């Protein structure tokens, strides 16, 4: 299993696609907002939490279909399925690899982009905390979606349609936590709820993803 993680990280670094793309998208998305919404810093400050969370969420979404697609095409998935590594383990490791290559960089980049949208000072701590706790859920749910649509040609659009409704609770609680944090209100409850959803997703979804993979490998 560790070999799987090491290989995925090596591939992400070597192929260079993994890190760069999602971060670039997050940056572009955040810089586009003022062009659309207007430069008034007051407006930007109030919508900053939501925009940052949406940017992170969409950045995760973009890199989901690559989780299994490459391994599906070059036969690695078939070979791993016949190896002692259980598919549940494969799904969990793929989610972890996706989080490390996509989720974590977003958490690191978010505060810097918060400056662009002049997020109130009190919000930064909560932004980092909620993203840190929320993005693993985005990866786990995304891995499940990727497993569902791996066998479908051009399944990327369908993948987004399936996964976005599942992202709803994490987005709601995550953005709410930052909004309340930025306004100085009590933001611990939404943060704990984000963590709850993440733990639930990490516990259940690898099994659902493995079941979907088994069906697609049939």
């Amino acid at each position: 299993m560790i070999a799987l993680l090491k290989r995925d990280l090596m591939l992400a670094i070597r192929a260079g696609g993994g890190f760069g793309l999602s971060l670039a998208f997050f940056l572009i998305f955040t810089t586009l907002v003022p062009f659309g919404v207007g430069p008034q810093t007051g407006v930007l400050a109030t919508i900053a939490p939501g925009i940052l969370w949406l940017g992170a969420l969409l950045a995760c979404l973009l890199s989901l279909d690559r989780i299994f697609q490459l391994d599906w095409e070059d036969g690695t998935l078939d070979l791993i399925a016949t190896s002692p590594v259980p598919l549940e383990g494969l799904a969990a490791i793929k989610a972890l690899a996706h989080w490390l290559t996509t989720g974590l960089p977003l958490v690191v980049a978010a505060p810097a982009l918060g400056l662009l949208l002049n997020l109130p000072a009190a919000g930064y701590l909560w932004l980092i905390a909620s993203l840190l706790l929320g993005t693993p859920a985005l990866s786990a749910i995304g891995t499940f979606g990727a497993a569902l649509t791996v066998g479908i040609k051009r399944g990327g659009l369908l993948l987004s349609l399936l996964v976005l409704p599942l992202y709803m609770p994490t987005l709601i609680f995550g953005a709410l936590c930052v909004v309340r944090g930025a306004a100085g209100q009590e933001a611990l409850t939404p943060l704990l709820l984000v963590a709850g959803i993440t733990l639930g997703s990490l516990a259940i979804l690898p099994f659902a993803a493995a079941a979907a993979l088994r069906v697609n490998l049939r």
Partner: protein
Amino acid sequence: MTLRVVDLACARGPAQILAGVTFAVAPGEALILRGANGSGKTTLLRTLAGLTPPLAGEIITAPDAIAYAAHADGLKSQLSVGENLAFWAGVFGTKDTSAAIDAFHLGPLLDRRAGEMSAGQKRRLSLARLLVTGRPIWCLDEPTVSLDAENVARFAAAVTAHLGMGGSAIIATHIDLGLPMAQTLDITQFVAKRIRADDPFAEAMG
């Protein structure tokens, strides 16, 4: 480790392809699967490997004994030969890959990217991967496709060595590999194409 298959029925998607497949492969033996394209060779191999659940019949062998290799050899072009082998060693839990590297003279190629290798070299790497799995029974699907005569000979020698060490192999191929202990099984005799038995939509209804 003998592999015994008793009255196996395999399906591809909604349709059953083969029925009543029965054979046994003792250690040191090789079985060549013959049959026209689409007659179910790949389906049979995937069922033996456990990817596709069989419709009926039994596959009697020790657990974790079968190593499956298809056309797509699961090699990452950005990774070097050594890294690819190390990865598969990690997945299958074998400690060192030196035996596999020497068996296919991959020593000089170790740090070359898999993407920069010829078809023959890639095939040698995918065979080395088979050795790394450390599993006695090889299920190979058209292993010699896109290989020139010299590499086919090298492949046959490798399989013979594997058989010599008590392994066995089931190979779907059209090319005569000249293996010593090879029996041939023409699976067209087992072809029984009809709707899957568990598909209740086959017979007429109101």
